[in-house]
Structures are given as structure tokens and as C-alpha cells.
């Protein structure tokens, strides 16, 4: 009896260290953050000295026009950059999925932007966008055009951060799509060629549908990441002009350090976390559905 019980408990015993690490490293900080979001807490106080104010931080957020604006900017930013990056990244992968000499060098070059520290990317772009000495405006004026107020005008500033993000993150989608493309079954593509499919038809009817599972995961990963982008925009515009580029993570950062409202910052982080959880959950469901479908297909094949 007791041996049987010990046997049953053994797996949990082995899991215990991992569980402990998870509890300390993951659940404790998250619980701390959730608790903090119910407090009126400024950084000069210890957490124990802060007043408990229930849901007031959250109600305040929803009535705060600046927060709503920054939520909107974040959503707009994520949708725009991820859409453009997907098109560019997948397009590039389709173009470069062939045997060119020096392909591996090219590939490494393409993913360089991803490897640069975000602060450096921000600084680099900020100087390139500089109104007078930046490369863009110098080139424009050399060619006889009017200079563009890259970071000085709300709409242009938004476009500028989108461009910088696309430059940095398209390679991520490119490299994942390329990997997907190269693992496609050659037989399917061969068969379509024999059936007389044109290049476009191959892409639309064979390659893209087969790549879809990888593309969906890539899309979600990028979407989650784009919701949390901070450093590049912080360095380039610090959220300005006005609130035109103040994405949520900048708002959280300012709320904690500039406004000294740790409780409110925690509440914002929780809302962001909820949004990201929904996205992650969507990804999980999709994976599950895919697995089920594959299982069903296998079952059908086996029966046949």
C-alpha cells in the first residue's frame, strides 16, 4: 500500500524542483504585480506602507484619455508592423528559396538587424531621421525635395517608428519562413510542376498552404513581441510628439518613474498581460486544432 503510494508520488517528487523554481521565478512576481495593482503605492513607500484602494487603479485607467490613446497607438502599431513584416518577410523568403552562390552569407546579412541591441537601433535611426544632418533629409534636399519632419510631426513620427521596426524585425519572419519553405516536401512541389502549375500557382496553392502552420505561429510570436516593444521607440521619440507614438510600454515606464504611481503602472502591466495571454491562448488553441486535424488525417490514412 505505502509502496504503491510512494510509487505514485515519485513523479511529483521529481517535478518538485522545477515547480519550486517556477513558483519563485514566475508566480511570485506575477502575484506581486497583481497585488500591487490594487494599491496606491509610490516608490518612496515600502509595499507594506501603501494603501489598499481596490479597483480604483483600473477604473482610473479606463477613464484616462491618455491611456486609451496609448492603447490605441499600440494596437495600431502592432497591426501595421506585423502585417507589413509578414508580407515582406514571406516574400523575401519565397524569392531567396533557391540555390544562389553565397546564400549562407546573404542569409546572415539579412538577419543582422535582429542581432543589434535595441538601444543602438533606436539611436541609429534617430540620427538617420535627424532634421538637418540625417541621411534621409540630406539626400532629399540634395535631390531638390523638401525635407520631411520625420520625428517632428505626429503622423510622420508614427510612420518613422513603423519603418524602424520593419527594418529590425522583418528578418525574423524571413528566417522562419525560409526554414519552413526548405522543409516542404519536395514531392508535392514536383508533382505540381508536372501537373503544369506556374510559379505563382505553386506559391498560392502549394507552398503557402503548406507553410501556414509555421506562418501562424510566427505571426503570433511577432504580434506578442510588438505589443511589448519599448527601447527603440523610447530612444527615437520618447512617445512624442504629443502622444502620437506613446505605446503602452512607454506609458507604463513613465507612470512608474515619472508619475511615481507604481500601483497604476502595475494595473497597466496587468492589462497588457491579459491582452498577451489572449493572444498566446489563441496560439495554443490553434496548435491544438492543428494537432487534432493531423491525427484525424493520420487515422483516415491508416484506415485506408
Amino acid at each position: 500500500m505505502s509502496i504503491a503510494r510512494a510509487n505514485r508520488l515519485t513523479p511529483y517528487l521529481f517535478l518538485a524542483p522545477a515547480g519550486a523554481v517556477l513558483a519563485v521565478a514566475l508566480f511570485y512576481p506575477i502575484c506581486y504585480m497583481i497585488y500591487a495593482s490594487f494599491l496606491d503605492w509610490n516608490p518612496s513607500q515600502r509595499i507594506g506602507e501603501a494603501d489598499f484602494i481596490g479597483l480604483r487603479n483600473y477604473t482610473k485607467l479606463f477613464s484616462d484619455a491618455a491611456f486609451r490613446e496609448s492603447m490605441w497607438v499600440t494596437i495600431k502599431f502592432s497591426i501595421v508592423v506585423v502585417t507589413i513584416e509578414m508580407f515582406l518577410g514571406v516574400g523575401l523568403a519565397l524569392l531567396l528559396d533557391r540555390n544562389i552562390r553565397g546564400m549562407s552569407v546573404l542569409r546572415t546579412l539579412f538577419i543582422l538587424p535582429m542581432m543589434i541591441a535595441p538601444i543602438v537601433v533606436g539611436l541609429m535611426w534617430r540620427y538617420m531621421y535627424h532634421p538637418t544632418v540625417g541621411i534621409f533629409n540630406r539626400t532629399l534636399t540634395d535631390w531638390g525635395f523638401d525635407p520631411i519632419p520625420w520625428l517632428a510631426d505626429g503622423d510622420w513620427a508614427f510612420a518613422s517608428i513603423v519603418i524602424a521596426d520593419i527594418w529590425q524585425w522583418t528578418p525574423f519572419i524571413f528566417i522562419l519562413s525560409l526554414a519552413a519553405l526548405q522543409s516542404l516536401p519536395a514531392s508535392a512541389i514536383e508533382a505540381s510542376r508536372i501537373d503544369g502549375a506556374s510559379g505563382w500557382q505553386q506559391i498560392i496553392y502549394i507552398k503557402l498552404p503548406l507553410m501556414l502552420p509555421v506562418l501562424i505561429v510566427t505571426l503570433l510570436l511577432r504580434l506578442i513581441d510588438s505589443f511589448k516593444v519599448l527601447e527603440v521607440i523610447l530612444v527615437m521619440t520618447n512617445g512624442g510628439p504629443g502622444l502620437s507614438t506613446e505605446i503602452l510600454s512607454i506609458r507604463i515606464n513613465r507612470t512608474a518613474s515619472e508619475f511615481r504611481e507604481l500601483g497604476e503602472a502595475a494595473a497597466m502591466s496587468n492589462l497588457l498581460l491579459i491582452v498577451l495571454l489572449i493572444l498566446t491562448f489563441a496560439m495554443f488553441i490553434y496548435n491544438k486544432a492543428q494537432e487534432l486535424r493531423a491525427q484525424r488525417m493520420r487515422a483516415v490514412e491508416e484506415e485506408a
Partner: protein
Amino acid sequence: MKVTKTNVWSAAIAVSLTYTTAYADGHTADVYAPYEGTTLVVNFPAHPHYNAVLEVLPEFTEQTGIEVEVDQLQYLRMRERQTLELTKDEGDYDLISYVVFSKADYVFADQLENLAKYFMNPRLADPNYDAGDLIDGYVANIGIAGGEKGYLPGPTGSLFGIPFGSETSVLAYRKDIFEKHGIDVPETYDDLLEVACLIPEVEPGMGGMASRAASGHQASHAFLLHLAPLGGRVFDAEWNPIINSPEGVAAANALKTIVDCGPEGGTTFGPAEAAAAFQQGQAAMFMDSIAFAAGFEDPSRSTVVGNVGYALHPEGVRRGSQTGGFGIGIPSNAQNKEAAFLLMQWLTSKEQDLAIALAGGNPSRFSTYENAELNEKYPYSATFGEALKYADPDWRPIIPTWGTINADIGTTMSQVLTEGLDPQEALDGVAERARATMEEAGYYTWQ
């Protein structure tokens, strides 16, 4: 292990012996003797003034036998570090430099020592300190709390820090350009705005005045810089927001005029970019902190060396240059408070204020600005000393809710500058939101 310990002890004894002999000159020995061998840990910002301080600090150790260990951080990082450090039971810092807007937070949270008990202690207070010589605008702005409106001097106020590395605003202008076109140096705001827009006409490619204007703190700072001289305030005596008064609108319009007639891309400028634009000859005027003056005379960075003149911050309906920068204070959780006070008193004494100023720091005393040697080295010193007589300690409120309100003014002003938002409408919005913030913080409890 044992050997190391013995070594340390013998070294310590050797050091202390050296000190006793080093200041055989008399009274200083008695004052500092009890603290000999103490090591003070101080927290300073990375700032030109404090770089100058580092040059004179070894002299303190030599005179007193008190060691000083400096932890220097970028000023926003410094504030973050202090925020954590000051909530501990036993702090690591004995003396801290703080940004002026930290005064409200630290004093309110009871984290800074009231300096009265040190100045009352005959063993510590130097009778020749001459506190009356300290620049009163700075002392009121940075040092005192608890009086009028809570953050200013008054019958109920007391001293929590001493200005050290403080700044005011002056108007820097290009002497050569002004001479070339026969333009007089602006003395009033009307003149200033006229000249600001005249320059781009007579000197194509050059902006009138370079100003901070980037969204957030910078735009707010620039707006407030004009608000005080034009007769406005953010709050009235009862904490009602009056930022949307006609004076407020005038200040917003002044800022807009300056930025519109200023160098290209001005709406993204922080102080460093604005100073760089002036330094590179892209603007004929620059009105900001005195801390930038030394940079304009540095031939390795500046193309305008020798061509920069300085004038008082122009007068609107009144004179009112800004006050800001840093002060030094003793944390309530410091371990060596008395020795820290001695260091603080030493650093802000007449002799050391001058020594630091000569090394490139910002003086805290009127006498330093009048010093002939300093004026010979930095010819603009006399103008700065004059400007400080009009320094306005109340040009912006120093209250715990200021961070939120300041950011709101800054983003809204940025919208006025870049998106054409109407100044009156913009400031009405700021006033309304400021009222809600103040209401929540309890400023209307007694009304």
C-alpha cells in the same frame, strides 16, 4: 586572513598618523578629529558641476582625514537608486545630491534630515559659514520646505538641503550676428519674439532661437520658462489650476512662435539638441540653463567660441528666471550624519564654492559670482550673478503630484507645437485634468 587584517590596521594607523601631522595648523583638527578615519559614501549625478567637485574632494580628505567614496550616476538613474535606498532602515549613502523635484518626495516621506539640529550644534556649525551669501532663490527652491504652499520658505519652513550644482536661465545670443544686422539684445518678451522671427529673414538658414520642445518634460519646461516672466502660474494660492489664464495662453503662444521661427526640427529638441543647434550656428539665440555656457566656449565642440554674449532672461510683466538643478542633503537613514554635515558645510563654504566654480562648477554663492578671478576666467559670471537676483523659486510647483501634471503639460504643449491644437483649448484641458489629479491627492480637502 590574519595577515591581511593586521595589514589593514597598520595601514589605517599609518593613514591617521599622516593626517594628524598634515593639519597641524590648529582649529580644523579639533573640529574634524572625532570623525577622522570615517568613510563617507556620497551619491552624485554625472554632471559638469559634480565633475568639478571631484577635483576638490581630495583636498577635503587631506584637511580632515575623512574619506569620501563617490557613487556617480546619470541623474535619472540616481533618482531611481535613491528612491530604493532611502526606504531602507540603514542606508548606504551618507550624503546625497538630489534633483530639485525630488525635494517634495523625499521631505514628504521623511527621508531627509532637517538641518536645524546641525546648524544649532556649536561643535559642527562653522561660524564663518555666511549662509546669507547663499543665493536665496536657490535656497528657497531647493533647500527649504514646509513654508508657503508647503514647498517654499515661510514662517513654518525649515532647511533640508543646500543648493549645490543649481542653475538658472539666461539668454545666450550671437554677438556677431546681432552686430552685423544692427539688432539690439532683447530686454522684453515683445523684443525677444520679434527678434526670434526676424533672424530667419535676415540670416537665411539660421533659426531665431533654439529651445527645448520635445514631447513630455522638455516641452513643459520650455513653456514654464515663459510662463513665470509673462505673469502666469500653474496654481493660485488655493491650488486652483490657473494655467489656462490669458498669461498661460500668452506663454504657449510665445513658445510656439519661438519654435516656429527656430531651427529646423526644433519640435524634437531636448536641451542637448537645442544647445548643439546653437553651438553649430543653426540658431542666433538660446535661452536655457547657465550650465551650457562652458560648452559654448569649448573649441572642440563649438563653432561659435568667442561670439556668444549673455543677457538676463527677458522681462515680461515681471522678471523671473528659472531655478533648478541639484542640492545636497543628508538621508534620514545615513550612518555618519555628523561627518556628512561637515562635508556638506565644507563643500558649500565660500572657499570651496569658488574652487569648484574655478574648476567649472556652478556657484551657489553671490560672492563667488562677484569674484574677480572667476570673472577673468569666465567673463559671463557677472551676468549670471545678476540674473540670479531675479531667480524665481516658484516658477513651477514642487509637489508630489507634479510628475503627472508636468507630463500632461508636456504632451499637450507638444500637440500645440506639432498638431496645431489651439493653446486655450489645450490649457483648458490641462487645467481640468490637473484639478482631478489635485482633488485625488487631497489638495481641496479644506475647501
